[in-house]
């Protein structure tokens, strides 16, 4: 099955084990948020008529808590723009960062500015009220698209990866486990990937190219090599030689380098904003990552990514993080960098965050690298503390980040803007740049993480997080393939690259990225290019990106949102971008396959993970980038 020949429509057979009679999109779990009871009632009725499973909510805060409590409980969110307790865009950002779910905005206001805002914040769509049922019938496409994008990313990363698995620390083993469990699905994907180009996985046996897990150690080695050579002069070949890691290919290094560069760039942009923040955090010495208080599960992931923690711990952390509110103030928890990454940090972070500035110093948040710093202040809005903390973290991270640069790719996930999401941030920072999805994620490469610890490892654990992707992996890959190939918009370049990974995207995007701000958005919109979208993605809403998204990269991009202008916007947007990006090629949702996975095996990933003993990472953790490789597609 996985043949590209499959139709894209929802009816196309699913490669995976899901039944082809998947009723998808029926059963799509929608959360609709609107303070207007009349509209809410009508929407609910309409969605039910579409056979979706609807949960309605009239307050954004309630919606958020619902989403947080049921991490994998919803597929898509529809929200009004004007709400009394929280601005719809804020909610959009939060959801994007924390849960990485597609969000549709709606409003009676159809002014261009507002619609644009939706786009830049990462909404996957914007509906004008009064909403007609026809408009709701197709919302499932956004879910599919997102998944596809995620898969896409992982696919690419996987295909290029080497076969051998490294024996890195725990992460590796976890990842190894993950890989093993996902091998099957991965294989499928691999087959599909073949089409994409460049990959020579013609046969099943060769399909399985284990993903390279960029464990903390490995990343440290990488960073060390890069630093020695000079960031600008470092070339994959030389780095490879210096690293002298058996089994590592030049391509692996190349893709990783790309990501790293992107990450650095993001840091560069972010640091400006964070200037002040950094100071406080510039403890530099030890990446005591500031309390990632908001580390809700996401951070944990990031932390985990740091490689410090095995996937499982990550899971724990997440739970812990999630469970615990920022009350963890443990001031001065200067958790060592590593620890920061580890789950503990998240907790600590909370406490620390509180300290923000002061306490934070020590702790370099994992987010260091994360451009999140960008807006420390912005968050001050309700409960922003977290944000601040994050900021601090970021700053801390930044300080650390300096090191970070060398250390690894701290994917400045959605940098600042996302910070609102704090949690997201945390994740971001800590998590190794996830390639694909993590839009908001944790890319943040814990810059601070003493950099070396690069969380990259986490990815393996992360993978599970996208419950969807995994589940659908088999299916998705199939569809992906098709799309990818067809999408060509990007010229299929994205896919074709063996080392295609999120990071790769960056470079391309960078061109475009420069203008994170809205200007780009405009550009982006027009350009459809995939990479550009990446940049655009950040600033603009993901929708645009979608098109571009082709590459998973977007995910990263989003995170990167550097700062620049869209900081806060990006927060939400960037995150979203990720999901959106995928869209591009995904125009045709693999539909059945993806969804089937979803629905049928919503927790396929979790199941897989469980097998591995990995905790089911929430979606939040999208760490990826590297980890995707492990994703057993």
């Amino acid at each position, binding site marked *: 099955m996985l043949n590209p020949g499959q139709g894209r429509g929802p009816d196309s057979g699913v490669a995976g084990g899901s039944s082809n009679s998947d009723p998808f999109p029926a059963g799509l779990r929608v959360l609709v948020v609107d303070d207007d009871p009349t509209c809410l*009632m009508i929407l609910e*009725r309409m969605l039910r008529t579409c056979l979706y499973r609807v949960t309605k909510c009239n307050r954004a805060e309630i919606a958020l808590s619902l989403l947080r409590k049921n991490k994998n409980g919803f597929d898509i969110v529809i929200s009004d723009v*004007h709400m009394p307790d929280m601005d719809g865009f804020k909610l959009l950002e939060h959801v994007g960062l924390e849960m990485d779910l597609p969000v549709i905005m709606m409003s009676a206001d159809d002014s261009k500015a507002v619609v644009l805002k939706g786009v830049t914040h990462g909404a996957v769509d914007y509906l004008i*009220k*009064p909403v007609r049922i026809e408009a709701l019938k197709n919302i499932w496409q956004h879910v599919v698209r997102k998944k596809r994008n995620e898969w896409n990313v992982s696919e690419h990363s996987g295909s290029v990866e080497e076969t051998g698995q490294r024996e890195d620390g725990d992460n590796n083993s976890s990842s190894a486990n993950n890989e093993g469990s996902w091998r099957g699905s991965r294989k499928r994907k691999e087959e599909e990937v073949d089409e994409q180009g460049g990959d020579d996985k013609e046969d099943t046996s060769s399909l399985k190219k284990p993903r390279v897990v960029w464990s903390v150690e490995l990343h440290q080695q990488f960073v060390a090599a890069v630093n020695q050579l000079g960031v600008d002069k470092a070339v994959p070949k030389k780095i490879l030689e210096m690293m002298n890691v058996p089994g590592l290919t030049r391509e692996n290094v190349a893709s990783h380098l790309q990501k790293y560069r992107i990450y650095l760039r993001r840091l560069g942009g972010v640091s400006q904003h964070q200037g002040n923040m950094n100071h406080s955090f510039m403890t530099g010495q030890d990446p005591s990552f500031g309390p990632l208080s908001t580390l809700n599960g996401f951070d944990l992931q990031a932390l985990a990514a740091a490689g410090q923690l095995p996937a499982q711990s990550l899971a724990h952390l997440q739970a812990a993080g999630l469970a615990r509110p920022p009350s963890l103030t443990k001031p001065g928890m200067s958790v060592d960098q590593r620890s920061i990454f580890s789950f503990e940090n998240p907790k600590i972070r909370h406490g620390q965050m509180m300290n923000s500035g002061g306490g934070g110093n020590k702790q370099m948040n994992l987010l260091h690298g994360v451009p999140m710093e960008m807006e420390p202040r912005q968050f001050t809005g309700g409960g922003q503390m977290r944000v601040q903390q994050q900021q601090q973290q970021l700053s801390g991270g930044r300080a650390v980040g300096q090191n970070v640069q060398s250390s690894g790719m701290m994917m400045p996930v959605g940098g600042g803007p996302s910070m609102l999401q704090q949690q997201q941030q945390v994740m971001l920072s800590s998590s190794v740049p996830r390639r694909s999805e993590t839009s908001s994620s944790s890319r943040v490469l814990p810059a601070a993480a003493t950099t070396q610890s690069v969380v990259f490892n986490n990815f393996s654990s992360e993978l599970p997080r996208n419950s969807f992707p995994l589940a659908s992996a088999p299916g998705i890959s199939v569809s992906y393939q098709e799309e990818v190939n067809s999408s060509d918009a990007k010229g299929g370049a994205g896919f074709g690259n063996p080392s295609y990974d999120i990071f790769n995207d960056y470079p391309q995007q960078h061109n475009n990225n420069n203008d994170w701000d809205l200007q780009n958005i405009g550009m982006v919109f027009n350009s459809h290019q995939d990479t550009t979208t990446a940049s655009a993605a950040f600033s603009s809403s993901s929708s645009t990106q979608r098109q571009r998204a082709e590459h998973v990269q977007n995910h990263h991009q989003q995170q990167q949102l550097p700062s620049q202008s869209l900081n806060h916007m990006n927060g939400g947007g960037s995150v979203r971008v990720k999901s959106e990006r995928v869209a591009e090629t995904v125009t045709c949702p693999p539909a059945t396959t993806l969804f089937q996975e979803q629905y049928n095996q919503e927790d396929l990933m979790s199941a897989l993970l469980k097998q591995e003993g990995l905790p089911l990472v929430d979606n939040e953790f999208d760490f990826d980038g590297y980890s995707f490789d492990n994703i057993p597609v």
Partner: protein
Amino acid sequence: MQRQVALIKQSLFDQGYLDEQFMELEELQDDVNPNFVEEVATLYFKDSARLINSIDQALERGSFDFNRLDNYMHQFKGSSSSIGASKVKTECTMFREYCRVGNAEGCLMTFQQVKKEHATLRKKLEHYFQLARQAGPKETARRSK
């Protein structure tokens, strides 16, 4: 009776009180939810009455916080358009326009219109629903097509 109901409904459309959105709502009505439209309308009138009150109070205060007024009206307009209350929606738009340019007089004047249209529609719909219930819900739903 049914024919009467149908005629009344048709006239509401013809006179511009209702627009196609109302038809959308009727489409959502079925055996499982036979009174959906009426329920929605009831909810709308209840909620919009509250909004009207808020706006009234705000206007009476005389401070003319246009932003606030616009916010209220935005909400009101959203609701109204959701059930297809065409004339009400039009008046809302005008009100918002006056808010935008900061024309207090215009706001006051338009708001009276809004209330008037709102009250008129309410009466008409209540009458319509009453008849429809007498005629039998199914017919009503079908007739809407």
